[in-house]
């Protein structure tokens, strides 16, 4: 029998970022200080959190389901996934050194809103509100960024979703997935696992067994979503994993732009984040999915940081459907992530735009899969990798053209920029063509930052560090330009900050 452990005030040690006083001490201090200082979101929130005991077994899966008051079919889904997961091995093909993960040492459910739920009133702990304010994600609608609705998820639970009512006037559903299971069980049941089945891979199976919260979006037919929808993920509690699940369904002739942001506190241990995002795009519909991933990357020595092991996939079911993934990846100790597109609908179009920055000891293995099944389908891949410090940054991608995908086209361009002699940049594209009317082009370059450009900037009085920021931003511009405005500004700052202390 499992016991639910109530923690009082959480026992957290807040790491204070090193300050300038450390600089004089040791030779690497400056770099270290920069690296540590620059993770702005490394604070923890002191909030009463209900955390279930560490460990994973069938009873835990049942407990999570029970806590969420889930229907029988969903529990069955979780249990099947769990049983499948037990028979699988953690994959090792990626160019990352994934530490041995002790799945029994992790707690699979942490609810920072528990206290308020028990007290009858459904009020949000002001600490939580403050946290999201601090992260720049105001949860009060009057303070919100114009034209953006937010679902804020901390640890395993959605804290609040804004503008729900306004959106529902148009028939748009935007809520946490837990709420959707209660309110729109038929829709959830129809689509959950339809794009990423639990058998897809090891981490997808794990997520399907223990997923906690995430967002659910449904855009009804012929509707243009009037605001950007956004989910903000925050890991707070210690030794917990976050297993969010997002499901977006965009019905015929509709459009939505969706943003995802993530941060986590600085902790010495790794934190596990294994998410699934599923997107369904119907006839003539269009979805834009943008991510600025800024999970804690670990310190300059490679201690701690988030293990970001994510399965994201969109199914372009309808004719003329469009899906575009844009990602700026600056965080995480380890990134294992391949936002993919299955282009089933004739004339469907998919895009993948990515900037992945790795510094210090970060390791990223990221890219995309474009599976062309329908006729005259088109995909574009633009990937920009930037490696610094002792990091390893890999692009891994698959372009597959099926037998019946007449007239399919793909263009891929994967560039890597090297900012240090200790880092690595790798490109592993897989191209598989089974149709002779397809045109597939792939090109990649790897080079170091152009010293003439740096010199030119220096001559004009720009410091090397600033120049690197400028050049990197220029290099990443094709991708940044694809982001919605607010995110683009954020992403640019993030790029410069992530690379400070790497040159000179």
């Amino acid at each position, binding site marked *: 029998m499992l016991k639910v452990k109530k923690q009082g005030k959480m026992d957290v040690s807040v790491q204070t970022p090193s300050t300038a006083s450390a600089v004089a001490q040791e030779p690497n201090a400056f770099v270290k200080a920069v690296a540590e200082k620059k993770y702005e979101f490394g604070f923890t929130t002191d909030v009463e959190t209900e955390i279930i005991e560490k460990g994973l077994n069938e009873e835990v899966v049942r407990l999570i389901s029970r806590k969420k008051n889930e229907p029988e079919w969903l529990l069955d889904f979780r249990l099947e996934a769990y049983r499948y997961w037990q028979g699988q091995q953690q994959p090792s093909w990626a160019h990352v050194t994934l530490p041995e993960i002790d799945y029994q040492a992790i707690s699979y459910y942490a609810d920072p809103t528990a206290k308020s739920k028990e007290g009858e009133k459904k009020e949000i702990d002001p600490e939580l509100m403050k946290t999201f304010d601090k992260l720049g994600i105001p949860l009060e609608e009057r303070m919100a960024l114009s034209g953006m609705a937010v679902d804020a998820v901390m640890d395993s639970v959605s804290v609040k979703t804004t503008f729900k009512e306004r959106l529902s006037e148009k028939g748009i559903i935007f809520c946490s997935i837990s709420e959707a299971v209660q309110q729109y069980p038929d829709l959830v049941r129809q689509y959950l696992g339809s794009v990423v089945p639990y058998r897809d891979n090891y981490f997808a199976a794990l997520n399907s067994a223990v997923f906690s919260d995430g967002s659910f979006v449904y855009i009804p037919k012929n509707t243009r979503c009037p605001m950007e929808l956004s989910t903000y993920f925050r890991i707070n509690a210690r030794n917990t994993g976050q297993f969010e699940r997002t499901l977006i369904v965009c019905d015929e002739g509709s459009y939505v732009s969706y943003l995802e942001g993530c941060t986590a506190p600085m902790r010495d241990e790794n934190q596990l984040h294994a998410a699934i995002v599923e997107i369904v795009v119907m006839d003539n519909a269009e979805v834009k999915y943008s991510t600025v991933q800024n999970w804690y990357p670990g310190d300059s020595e490679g201690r701690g940081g988030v293990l970001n092991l994510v399965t994201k996939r969109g199914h372009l079911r309808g004719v003329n459907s469009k899906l575009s993934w844009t990602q700026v990846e600056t965080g995480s100790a380890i990134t294992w992530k391949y936002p993919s597109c299955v282009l089933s609908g004739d004339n469907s179009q998919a895009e993948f735009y990515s900037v992945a920055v790795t510094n210090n000891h970060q390791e990223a293995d990221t890219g995309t899969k474009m599976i062309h099944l329908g006729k005259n389908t088109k995909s574009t891949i633009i990937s920009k990798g930037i490696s610094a410090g002792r990091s390893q940054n890999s692009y891994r991608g698959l372009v597959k053209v099926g037998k019946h995908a007449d007239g399919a086209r793909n263009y891929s361009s994967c560039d890597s920029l*090297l*900012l240090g002699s200790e880092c690595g*940049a790798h490109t592993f594209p897989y*191209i*598989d063509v089974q149709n002779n009317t*397809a*045109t597939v082009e792939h090109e990649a370059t*790897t080079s170091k930052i152009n010293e003439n450009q740096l010199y030119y900037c220096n001559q004009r009085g720009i410091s090397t560090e600033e120049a690197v920021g400028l050049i990197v931003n220029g290099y990443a511009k094709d991708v940044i330009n694809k982001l919605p405005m607010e995110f683009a500004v954020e992403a640019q700052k993030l790029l410069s900050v992530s690379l400070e202390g790497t040159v000179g």
Partner: protein
Amino acid sequence: MESERQYIELYHDAADLIRQRSCAVMNAVRDAAFQAFASQGFPSRKVERYRYTDVAAAFAPNYGLSLFPLTSHPSPFIFSFKDAPIDLTPYYNKVADASDGITALNTALAHEGLLIYVPRNHRPSAPIQVDNWLRATAPTMMNRRVLILLEEGADATIVINDKADAQPVSFLTTQVIEVVCKANARLDLYEIEDTNPLCARFSNVYIQESRDCSVKHNVVTLFNGHTRNLCDVYLQGENAEITLNGCAIGSGSQHIDNNTLIAHQVPCCQSRQLYKYVLDDHSVGAFAGKIFVGKEAQKTSSQEVNANLVAASTARMYTQPMLEIYADDVQCNHGSTVGLLDESALFYMRQRGIPEAEARTLLKNAFMGQVIDQIQYQPLRDKLYVKVEKRFRGELEKCEECRLCK
């Protein structure tokens, strides 16, 4: 391990005979190689470098092992291992990757080795030609072993031809070629495969280059059955250069898999790769090329291009150009395309009155021509222009050299 069993049994039965016909340097590593093979078996498709070729299936049929001796060599630079003018122990099976299943099997079964040795600052006046003529009355397996050793400043052009009589007998060939180039040596190595659909070939070529070396390796698959070419290059001296070129023409149900690794291990080396495929009918092509740049290999310059024409809806192409880079001051790029013939060029040619089939042949020829152009040795280049064109016209099956057609 079904497929492996017959080779394991074969070794138990025939090892003594092989030893008798072989020489000390080969026998010295034979048992260890056999153990390596027996313990791991053939590489499965789960092994990254063997994703696109089912090795076990290709080795499954029952072949007889050929232990024919090498015929005489009229060249002063070609020797049987037995008559080697130098001690081969420091070289034999040293450059090759002994852990590779195919190499291990070859090392265990090969009874005779061919040495091409060019002494210091020597330059053979004519290219060295090695012809492998596959001819037998029953299904036969051959295990070919070649060591090419170029001393400092040596300069050679080597042409290796694989030919087969057009008889309904199947052949399985394993080949391991080890190339050691000492400082400032220069080598042009050509391999032309022009056999028949019953021939399976597994070739592993290992090239080691010292300072200031320049090596060009061209592998042309004109006609074959099932081909797997692996080529590993280790650039171990500064300022070394490697060029790997490949042409593959597939039709029928041919299978052509080229897998390359170029390891830049020291600074200031250059590598260039150009592989082109034209695939028709049910043929399958695969190209996987990895450029590895080690931490020390600053100022590396590397280019890799793989371009493919898929001419039939039933043909299939896999391509996988890879970069793995641990140094920062590098210029590396790769490009890969899979496509069809340029429709506007076709239309233009037809408007000028060139029949469509002819226009297609001209375009395919032009596409391959860009690889053939790079062949330095002119008589071979001219011959290949003709052969490639004949191949596209479907005339190569009746090859002019083969006795049956004469």
